[in-house]
C-alpha cells in the first residue's frame, strides 16, 4: 500500500477514535510529548496503562468475589483506574469509572458489577483500537512516510 493511502487511513481511523470517545484530547497532549529522543513514548505509556489496568481489573474482580465487599477498597481501585485512564486519554474507560464510583458510594453491588463488566469491555476495545493505530503507524514509518500530527486533523 502506498504511503499516502496509509496516511489517509491513519487519519480517518484517528478521527473516528476521537469521535467515538475512545480517546480524548489528553491523548493528543501525550503525542506532543513524544519526540525524536523518545519515539516510543506513547507506545510505552499505553502499554504501561494496559498492564496496570489489567491488574486493577483483576483486583476489582477479586474484591467482588469476597463475601463481604470492601467498598472502600473497590473505590480505591476504581479511583486509580480513573486516574490512569484519564492520563492517557481513554475517555470511555474513564466515564465508566466515574459511574462505578457512584455505585460504590451507594454500595450498589449490582451496579458495580455491571460497571466492572463494562470496564473490562471498554478497556479491551480501546486496547485493540490503539494497537491498530500503532500498527498503522509502524507501517507508514516502514514505508518511509511520516505520521501526521493529530492536532492538525481536527
Amino acid at each position, binding site marked *: 500500500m502506498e504511503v499516502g493511502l496509509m496516511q489517509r487511513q491513519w487519519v480517518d481511523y484517528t478521527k473516528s477514535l476521537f469521535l467515538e470517545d475512545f480517546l480524548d484530547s*489528553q491523548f493528543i*497532549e*501525550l503525542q*506532543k*510529548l513524544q519526540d525524536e529522543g*523518545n519515539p516510543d*513514548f506513547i507506545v*510505552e*505509556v499505553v502499554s*504501561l*496503562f494496559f498492564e*496496570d489496568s489489567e491488574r486493577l481489573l483483576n483486583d476489582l474482580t477479586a474484591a467482588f468475589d469476597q463475601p463481604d465487599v470492601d467498598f472502600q477498597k473497590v473505590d*480505591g481501585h476504581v*479511583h*486509580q483506574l*480513573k*486516574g*490512569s485512564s*484519564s*492520563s*492517557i*486519554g481513554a475517555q470511555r474507560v474513564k466515564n465508566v469509572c466515574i459511574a462505578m464510583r457512584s455505585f460504590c458510594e451507594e454500595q450498589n453491588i449490582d451496579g458495580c458489577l455491571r460497571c466492572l463488566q463494562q470496564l473490562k469491555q471498554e478497556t479491551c476495545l480501546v486496547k485493540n483500537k490503539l494497537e491498530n493505530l500503532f500498527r498503522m503507524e509502524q507501517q507508514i514509518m516502514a514505508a518511509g512516510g511520516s505520521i501526521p500530527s493529530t492536532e492538525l486533523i481536527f
Partner: protein
Amino acid sequence: MSTASSSSVRKASEAVPDQFPAGLRVLVVDDDPTCLMILEKMLRICRYEVTNCNRAEDALSLLRQYKNGFDIVLSDVHMPDMDGFKLLEYIGLEMDLPVIMMSVDDGKNVVMKGVTHGACDYLIKPVRIEALKNIWQHVVRKRKNEWKDLEQTCVDDVDRQQKTNEDADYSSSANEGSWRNSKRRKDDVEDPEERDDSSTLKKPRVVWSVELHQQFVAAVNQLGIDKAVPKKILELMNVPGLTRENVASHLQKYRLYLRRLSGIAQHQSNLNNTFMSAQDAFGPPLNGLDLQTLAAAGQLQPQSLATLQAAGFGRSTAKSGMPMPLVDQRNHIFSFENPKLRFGDGQQPHLNGSKPMNLLHGIPTTMEPKQLANLQHSAQSHGNMTMQVSAQGGQSSSQLMQTPQPQARAQILNESTSTSVTRLPQTMQPSILPNGTTSAVLARNEFGNNNRGGGYNLVSPASTMLNFPLNQTAELPGNSFPLQSTPGMSSIVPKGRFPDEVNSDIKGSEGFVPSYDMFRDLHPQKPHDWDLQHVGVTFETSQGSLDIPPSAFSHQGYASSQQNGQNRNTSTAGKAMFLLEGGSDNGNAQSMGQQLNPIFVDGSVRVKSERASDISSQTDLFSEPFGQEDLMSSLFKQQQGSIATAESELEWLFHHNTPV
C-alpha cells in the same frame, strides 16, 4: 556558615543558574505508574530535574536523605501506603518544601483539604504540561515569603530585644558577663560566612532569651497548646515591647518543633540517635515548663522517653532506638521534675553499663577521649560557645551528642552539676531563627546545603540528651555528664525512646554560630541553589541574653546509615528542648549554620554554638573548654561526612533571637 557544601545529591549548581527554572529539582510521588511516567516526561520537557517515587514512604526517606536535594514536591492524593495529605504535612514540617497535590478528584472538599493542609497548589488530573511549566513560581514565592518573615521578625524584634535584654535578669551576672565576653569572642571568631549572613540580614532579631522563652512556654502551657493564640500568649507573658507578631512567629516555630518531634519520633526508625541533652543547670523552671509543653504537645513517644530514662539510669533499654528524650506524647508527661530522669542525679554513675553509655540506647557511641578533645578543640578554635557537652559515655549521664553530621556544631552539653552551671562560658548566641518557617521546629536536615534553621526542639535543658551517632561514645572526659546536672533539671530526655528513629537524636548542634546561616540561605547566594539553603542557624548572641546552659546540640548525624536528619533533643538546661536535626547525608557536609542556642535560663551555662562549617572540619566549637568537653564537638567531628547540615533544633529558638 558555608552554605557551600552543596554536596547535595542534586546540586542545583549542576543546572545553570541563570537558566532557572530549568534544573528545578522536582520529586514526583504517585502510585500510578502510568501517571508517573507521563509526569516525568512532561517535567523533563520543562527541563526540570525529576525524581520519581511510587511510594510515599520512599519519597519521605529520599527527602530526608537528601535534604536540600529537592526544590518542590508533586504528590498524588490517593496512595496506598500513605495518604497524600499526610505526606504533605510531613514534608511541610520536616523540610518545608512547597508541595503540589494532584488528583483526578476535583471535588471541592478534596481541594479544600489540600489548601488546609498547606499544599501550595492542587492540580487536577490529567495534568497538562502547561500547568507544570509554572510550578517554579511556588518555589520562588515560598522563599520570598520566608525571607520576608525573617526580616519582619527582625525588625519588630529589635527594639523589644533591647528592652528585654536590659531587663534580663540572669541569675548569674557573672555568667552573663562572661557570656558577653564569650559572645564577643565568638563574634570575633565567627565564621566569616556567618558574618556575612548577619550583615546581609542587617536586621536585629528578637532574642528569645531563655527567660523569655520560659515565659512563653509557661503561657502556652497555661492556655493549652491547642488553644494558645499569640494574642493571649502575649497578654500572659506581659513583656513590654514584645509584639504579637513576635509571639506569633515564635509560636509557629514552637509548634512545628513540637510536631516534628512527634512526627519524627514516629517516623524514624532506625537511627540511633544520640541524644544530647544539654542538661544544664539552667534551673528547673525552664525544664519543667518546656518539658511539659513538649509533653503536652505529645511529641515524644512514650517509649522513647522511657528508653531515655532507662538509659539515663544506666539501664539499657531494650529498644535500640534512640530515645527521644525530649518530647513525650501528649499524654505522657514527663516528669521533668525529675532530673534524674535521665541523667539521674548528677552523674549517672550507673550509666556505665558495659556499653558505653550512651544515653541513647542502642547507640554504641562512645565518645572517645580524643573526640572530646576534638570537641574542645573545635570549640576553642571557634571560640564560640562552648557547649559543654557532657555526655558521658558510660559514665554518668551521658549526653550523647551526636552529630552524625559533621556539621554538627559542637553540641553543647551542659551539665549542670549544680544550679549554677556556670560552666559554660560559652555564650550561646541565640540566633534568630532565620526561617520564616512556621514552626519553630524546623528540624530539617538539609542535605548538602545549609540547613535551614529548622525547627528546633527546645529541649528542656534539664536533660540534654545527646544522641551520639553510632559511633560516638559519649564520654566526656572528665565531664560528668551534664545531664546529671542539677536536680533541677529535668531530663527531658529519657523519657521516651525514640521510636527507633533517629529522630530522636539530638543533633549536636554544632556550635553556635552567631551568624545565621539561614539568613544566608535565604538569600539565594547560590544562584543555582534553588532550594533554600538551610540556613545555618547561627546564634547571634543576643545581647547578653543567653547564657546557655550547656545545651547539647547534637545534631544529626547519624553517622550510621541513617540518613535522615535526626532530631536531637537536647535539653538545654532545662529550658528548651532543641532538637537538632541534622540530616545525615552522605557526605554532605553541611555546615550547620545553626547553632543551637540553648536557652538557658540562668545563663549559668553558656553555650556557645559554633557553627560547624563542614563536616570534616567541624567541631570546633568550644572555645572554652570547660572541662566539659564538648562532646558535641567531638561528635560532630565524628560525624564527618555523614551529616549534612544538621540543623539543630535548638537553634530554632535561638534563631529567634536576634543578634543584635
